[in-house]
């Protein structure tokens, strides 16, 4: 792979990674949000595979495919099943409307670029120069988590943050040690399962997954 193709492919993958996150902010149908999350998983896989191919590292490519199977396959499948059980639905009234959300995303992107200056300065390779993209997705995920009111949208927000951290790990250092990577993937999977069980219980106890119903506990 020549330098130019590598940079182009990497930028393409990062662009798709960022675009899917912004589109999640834009769409309101929960089914579409899950679909976009799966697309982002594919972009993340492509990103890791491109890095692996560049370094000629077969192990890295395999890890990338494993990450892809979890993020683009298993997790969207689990969420779609939860969605079918809950009868679908839309994000009815996010705390911040869509137009403002998109503007906020632009501000978050600038913030991410400012914050990641020290990271890029340490080693200005094409890969680390893409770290701000990962941080932007992290901030968008956090924003989604605090402004959306359906349980599933919050879950997607959390998973966007997690995708972003994985992307940052591979962009900076080709990933954390394998033991840790395995533990992290397992924990993410378990956290999703826990939240799914809780969603089911919530539906049984409150009759819905609109988190505005959660107001029993306060001071």
């Amino acid at each position, binding site marked *: 792979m020549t330098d130019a193709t590598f940079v182009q492919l990497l930028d393409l993958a990062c662009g798709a990674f960022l675009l899917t996150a912004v589109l999640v902010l834009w769409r309101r149908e929960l089914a579409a949000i899950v679909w976009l999350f799966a697309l982002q998983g594919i972009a993340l896989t492509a990103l890791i595979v491109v890095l692996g191919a560049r370094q000629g590292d077969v192990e890295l490519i395999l890890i990338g495919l494993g990450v892809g199977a979890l993020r683009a396959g298993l997790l969207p499948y689990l969420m779609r099943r939860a969605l079918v059980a809950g009868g679908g639905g839309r994000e009815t009234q996010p705390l911040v409307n869509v137009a403002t959300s998109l503007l906020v995303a632009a501000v978050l992107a600038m913030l991410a670029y400012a914050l990641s200056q020290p990271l890029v300065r*340490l080693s200005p390779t094409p890969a680390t120069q893409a770290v701000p993209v990962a941080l932007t997705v992290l901030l968008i995920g956090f924003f989604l988590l605090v402004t959306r009111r359906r349980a599933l949208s919050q879950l997607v927000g*959390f998973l966007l943050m997690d995708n972003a951290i994985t992307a940052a790990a591979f962009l900076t*250092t080709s990933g954390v040690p394998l033991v840790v990577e395995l533990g992290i993937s*397992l924990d993410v999977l378990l956290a999703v399962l826990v939240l799914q069980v809780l969603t089911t219980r919530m539906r049984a106890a409150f009759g819905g997954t609109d988190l505005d119903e959660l107001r029993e506990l306060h*001071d």
Partner: protein
Amino acid sequence: MGSLLVIGPLAVPVAAACAYAVLGWNRATAWLGALSAAGVLACAVALAATGGGDALGGQLTGDALSAYMLLVIGAVALLAMLAGPAYLAAELAAGRTGPRAMRRYGVLTQSFIAAMALAVLASSLGLLWVAIEATTIVTAFLVGHRRTREATEAAWKYVVICSVGIALALLGIVMLHYAGTHAGVTSLGWAELTAHADRLDPGVTRIAVVLLVLGFGTKAGLAPMHAWLPDAHSQAPAPVSALMSGVLLSVAFYAVLRTKVIADAALGAGFARTLLVIVALASLAVAALLLLGQRDYKRLLAYSSIEHMGLLALGAAVGGALALAAVLLHILGHGLGKSVLFLSAGRLHQAVGSSRMDAVRGLTARAPLLGGTFGLGLLALLGLPPFSLFASELGIARAGFAAGLGWAIAPALLLMLVIVAAVCRHAGRMLLGDSPDGAVATPYSVAVPLVAGLAACAALGIATGPLHSLLRAAATIAGAAP
């Protein structure tokens, strides 16, 4: 021998969890939990006496700090597990639980203890992260154990906020790893990172330290990410609240302590100190404000935990072996005192049927033992002698003034004064006076851990005895001067 003692604290609760999964919860297995906690405690004592060891190819290491934290886990778990059978028996009698839920309780509490033991024995930041996230997953089901609206809500908030916090910590680990690889440190082990900390890029390390303190601080209940704590601790079953408040917070704080060692070596003492002073004072302020108007005695205990975590952060900010010895002593004292209080509160809740303070009047007249342990426990937490929290709070304040941090200690003391006034006012109404209601009985199996916990807390306040050398060794590791 050393590696056996490091594997033991993990293997014993895992074996007990398997036993519960196979045999279920019955008269014979009810005490298995306490036996396993005693096993963890015994391993911790032996580990401290033999001077540590490592296992699994260096993935697990037991140094003095790990042994001390393991001791805290074992001691508090023993109290909580001793009170467990009576608690579940009362729940069963009230029809709030069943055989399946009790089996699950047995499996989950033991897995919870194992995950905490793994966290303090992990020799690398990566494994520590995995263990702490595992505690979130296990305890989520314990918080939601009662399946009521309140319990489900508390469990949801708990998992979402703590997972986000711990995700930030993961990003911090990624950043530290990035700084590490450029300094020639490819592992995430404590020893390697600390030894080569001076070569880490300061800009990247600064970002990493902020993320790690904020992330692990979420799990430790430090402001500004503390919102989950009062809900989760007030909704979980009493023995689980005791474990979560008594040790889980401290285990997460242990991660902050380890991070601070690396931060001090890489960036000098000032950076982590500023960060910790801010979160400490914020936590104390949040606790003081919300304790003033509190109406629920379980939430009162939860906010008191935020206060004590703030104090620990303040002690860690002061730094140095003296302050860290006080912090570690405070961890043990708070663990014992808070677990006694949560166990008393659980018994009280079962007897009164409400966790509102105005439902409880004249407790000392109705139930002298329960009222006594609740009242003395509160006095212990407020830092009155002879309990060990008096000695440790005094130690933190003295070390703080000596280190020139008087500007931070003075407002902290003022906030603590507010907390003392608030808690005394609430406690006076609950404990004193006459009560129209009947007496509340306390079974022996509940009374024993309550009295034992208070006695241990008081004994530690008078003399640390054989703990002294362990405390000093652990404080040297945590407070290593750059």
